[in-house]
């Protein structure tokens, strides 16, 4: 057992897969320049020492090309892991991801495959509106992609390895405040979700959520940073006699509805917590799906606590207001218990 941060766990996953399979390579801006950053959040730091600069490929600032090159390489026998420094820049490559990566297998009638991974950091960290977005809701809306969002080191390693071995384009959303709180590129407000990671190889299948905490009054489904905020809220609420079950879906596409439905059969109350803006965030789909398939298990409205529908403001007081906090979650839970 090793104790790793999420950044380290991701790096180990990449390292192991690159050792295992020659076809795997990384590309992106500043991912491992000598003396540089190892990507915006150190995930690829030092990998070029072992694998050389051909397989850890530093690119120009050309997002269309990065994504398109990943698609082309994937279709022709390679397994690219592409990187954007901030998820917000995915918009610059949206055409390649939505129109090519996601559709090539389908448009070809299943004759080509696109085994690529797109890694993107999300989350608000007082950098202003263009370096802050949580973009899950855009990508869950694109058929042909798979979407994962690991919130622990164990999951990060196991899910990324599965992603690399998947024959389809997988978008990995990583949260800036969860990479780890050590190192000179760590974020001020970072949590430190270091975790035990087995020494033996393991893979985590997509579509299997986990219960982070058991409870009986309310089911909270939350991802990435919001898992931790929900856990905090659960602590607060427990003292007030409200028992919260926290589910981390871990992958958004595919999504583990079974686990959620199983939980609400017990709690009969559902809350979804996401950092992404509320209108058409991934939580909207979860709420809609439950309202369609499992409405009768519920005794109360389905509540979503999400980023307010505004761009992310710079000032920390405003940013903290926009991103769901433990107390906002707790407050919504109290209200939900009364309804």
């Amino acid at each position, binding site marked *: 057992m090793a104790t790793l941060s999420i950044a380290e766990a991701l790096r180990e996953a990449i390292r192991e897969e690159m050792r295992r399979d020659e076809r795997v390579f990384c590309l992106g801006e500043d991912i491992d320049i000598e003396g540089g950053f190892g990507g915006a959040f150190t995930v690829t730091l030092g990998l070029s020492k072992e694998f050389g600069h051909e397989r850890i490929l530093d690119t*120009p600032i050309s997002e269309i090309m990065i994504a398109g090159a990943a698609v082309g390489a994937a279709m022709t026998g390679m397994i690219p892991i592409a990187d954007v420094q901030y998820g917000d820049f995915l918009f610059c490559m949206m055409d390649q991801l939505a129109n090519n990566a996601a559709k090539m297998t389908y448009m*070809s009638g*299943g004759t080509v495959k696109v085994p690529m991974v797109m890694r993107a950091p999300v989350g608000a960290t007082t950098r202003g509106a263009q370096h802050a977005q949580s973009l899950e809701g855009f990508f869950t809306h694109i058929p042909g992609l798979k979407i994962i969002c690991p919130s622990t080191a164990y999951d990060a390693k196991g899910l990324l390895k599965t992603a690399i071995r998947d024959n389809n384009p997988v978008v990995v959303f990583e949260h800036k405040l969860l990479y780890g709180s050590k190192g000179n590129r760590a974020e001020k407000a970072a949590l430190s979700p270091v975790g035990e990671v087995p020494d033996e190889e393991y893979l985590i299948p997509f579509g299997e959520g986990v219960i982070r905490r058991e409870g009986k009054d309310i089911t909270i489904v939350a991802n990435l940073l919001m898992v931790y905020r929900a856990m905090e809220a659960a602590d607060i609420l427990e003292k007030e006699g409200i028992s919260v079950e926290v589910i981390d879906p871990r992958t958004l596409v595919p999504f583990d509805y079974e686990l959620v439905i199983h939980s609400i059969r017990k709690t009969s109350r559902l809350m979804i917590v996401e950092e992404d803006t509320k209108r058409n965030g991934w939580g909207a789909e979860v709420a809609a799906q439950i309202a369609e398939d499992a409405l009768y298990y519920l005794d109360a409205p389905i509540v979503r606590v999400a980023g307010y529908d505004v761009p992310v403001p710079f000032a920390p007081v405003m940013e903290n207001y926009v991103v769901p906090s433990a107390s906002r979650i707790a407050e919504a839970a109290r209200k939900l218990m009364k309804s």
Partner: protein
Amino acid sequence: MYEQLFLLRNYEDRIYYMFLEGIMPGTIHQSQGQEACAVGVLFDVRKEDYMTSTHRPAGHCLAKGVSLESMMCEMFAKANGCCKGKGGAMHTGDISVGAIPAVAITAGGMPVAIGAGLSCKMRKTDNVVICFFGDGASNEGAFHESMNAAAIWNLPVVFVCENNLYGASTHINQVIKIKDLAERAAAYGMPGYVADGNDVLAVNKAANEAIDRARKGKGPTLLELKTYRRCGHSRNDACGYRDKQEEKEWFEKDPVARCKNYILQQQLAAPVELEAIEKKVLQQIDDAVAFAKASPSPEPQDALLHVYA
């Protein structure tokens, strides 16, 4: 070569007529008049070499070796089309012969060619990638990012710009200020050449030089082929935006007729030999049409397959 030129021309003409008859679904973007580009560039490439194409892919695909039947079936939206009826005209391709399914987003196939080029290089093959695009596409950001990447990484990619003077209804001189698009190669430190895109031999020569460079690890080339569409941009386009004199001049340079005349003049083949070829090709097309018509349609629910590999 003439056989291929003749095939491309007659395949597309036939599609056009069937389209007018209303027996063919979807939309079409044809390349009559530009056949020498596809044939000249692809004549000597290997099956293992890759190609990326555009919304106007029929000629490229035939010349790259996608089977006539499978393309015809795709046009008829049949289950045994090269894309199983899922792709349609604008996404024609067959990866088994190196024809990456065409991308209908203008210049959207160019970054894909970079990936294929990286792949050829990283896997230490000496295969190359032919990247087709149009004059209009050269104003897309994707063009710029792709050209630069190929240059700095010395990728085995041959960029083939078929400059047919128009992007849809827009004349190229209205949207660029330079004379030749080949000049843009200099901005990336890449060689750029112009060739007569209606002369299949000239195209073949220029392309083979570029392909040879790429194969030997000497990096990418931008090849601009000056050519012209005989047809509309897409169905129902009477080309009202084109100058009639310009059309006339270009129509006289028809690449298929030109190749035929050349062969006859140089006595490289006798008229009867060419006639035999033409007859064979027309029969192949007839057969493909018959085959496609008789082929089964996909089931509606097949729509749910192949979202994931």
